[in-house]
């Protein structure tokens, strides 16, 4: 069985500076993989290469059988099948919550207004924000905006979800409302790749944990292994874990 997302020796440079070095991993259908590492380690860049928001120069990425780096691949079509949630939410501020949820369904997937609306509101309800459908993004808190962003991605019926530090820009009291939604998604069997420092989330739902440093994948192992025997981890990973697990 081939994996949903496969990365083979992915390397990327900004000029002379190498930001990704031979990154290889795979995410199986229904698997939840957490990517962590110090800032500047390339984890956000790595996850953005998966849906071609960041180009890469060497290696191969296969998503659901399609090669991301192949110039013949219809990237908009491929991206429409992968949901992505950003650190800064990136809701469209000039559109109402409902329009945020429906615009891509209508314009990209060609769904009817009614169908898009029904689907959008269904997911808005699932993230607990149905009452806010007529509002604009600026009227919602950060946590609420991020939940809308998740609902927006889910409305496209994605085959996998990418999360790029979804809770890093949130006030602490709003982190959990977003994590709760993500945990629920994971329990439902959604294929997820999450860049996050929330180790509690990783312990709870991750199948695997990837640790990155200086653009390379240093650790890639099952959650039990990653958290079970910290002493067996690489020095960099131990150092990182000791810092973020201290408190």
């Amino acid at each position: 069985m081939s994996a949903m997302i496969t990365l083979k020796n992915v390397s990327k440079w900004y000029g002379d500076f190498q930001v990704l070095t031979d990154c290889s991993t795979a995410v199986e259908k229904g698997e939840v993989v957490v990517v962590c590492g110090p800032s500047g380690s390339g984890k956000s860049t790595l996850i953005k290469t998966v849906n071609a928001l960041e180009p890469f120069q060497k290696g191969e990425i296969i998503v659901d059988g399609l090669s991301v780096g192949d110039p013949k691949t219809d990237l908009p079509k491929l991206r429409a099948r992968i949901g992505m949630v950003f650190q800064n939410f990136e809701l469209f501020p000039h559109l109402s919550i409902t329009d945020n949820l429906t615009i891509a369904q209508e314009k990209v997937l060609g769904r009817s207004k009614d169908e898009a609306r029904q689907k959008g509101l269904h997911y808005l309800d699932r993230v607990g924000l149905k009452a806010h459908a007529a509002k604009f993004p600026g009227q919602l808190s950060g946590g609420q905006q991020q939940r809308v962003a998740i609902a927006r991605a889910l409305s496209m019926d994605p085959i996998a979800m990418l999360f790029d530090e979804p809770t890093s820009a949130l006030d602490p009291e709003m982190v959990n409302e977003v994590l709760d939604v993500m945990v629920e998604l994971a329990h439902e069997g959604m294929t997820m790749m999450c860049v996050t420092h929330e180790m509690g989330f990783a312990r709870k739902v991750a199948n695997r944990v990837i640790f990155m440093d200086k653009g390379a994948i240093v650790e890639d192992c099952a959650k039990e292994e990653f958290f079970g025997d910290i002493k067996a981890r690489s020095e960099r990973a131990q150092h990182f874990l000791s810092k973020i697990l201290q408190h």
Partner: protein
Amino acid sequence: MMGFDFSQIGPALPGLIDGMVLTLKLLLLAVSGGVALGTVLALMRLSSNRLLSGASKFYVNYFRSIPLLLVITWFYFVVPLIFKWISGEFVAVGAFTSCLVAFMMFEAAYYAEIVRAGVQSISKGQLNAAYALGMTYGQAMRLIILPQAFRKMMPLLLQQSIILFQDTSLVYAVGLMDFLNTARSKGDIVGQPNEFLILAGVVYFVISFGASTVVKRLQKRLAV
């Protein structure tokens, strides 16, 4: 006392109104065309294709470096030739069309810079979010980036259009009867040029200053 006599203005009013209609028609068409062309130029300038961005850069720098009056008079002679070259036969283009083309092309250079700044002020994350939802570059621009950019730059676009409103008076150079040219000629005919020019000045001031005040208010509201 200087002894101004405004009594001749009343009878001249229908002609003056026709002149103002022409001025406003020219303004509206030139603004729409100029903004449309300016947007295309801005997107070309922002493109990673060096040929496109180079062409746009040259266009903008060129038109910003020559006087509007020159463009108006020059186009008066050139536009009919271009039409002839395209359609193969002589077409009477007329001063209005040649002026309109001149204004559109000249103002596009200024609008392009405003639109470019507006697009650049929208964060890259918005474009990424649009892409991540499967939108093409065209869809992302049309549905997500440009609507936000235009909202932000509306005050600047309007200010530029108020300047254009005043600059439309330059069409006197090719004999087009806009508001100012009509006022001048009517004043000359009845031998009261001062009164008619004073009236024209007041009308331009009221419209420009009034519009400018509205724009400033709009700017404050958008800034909140």
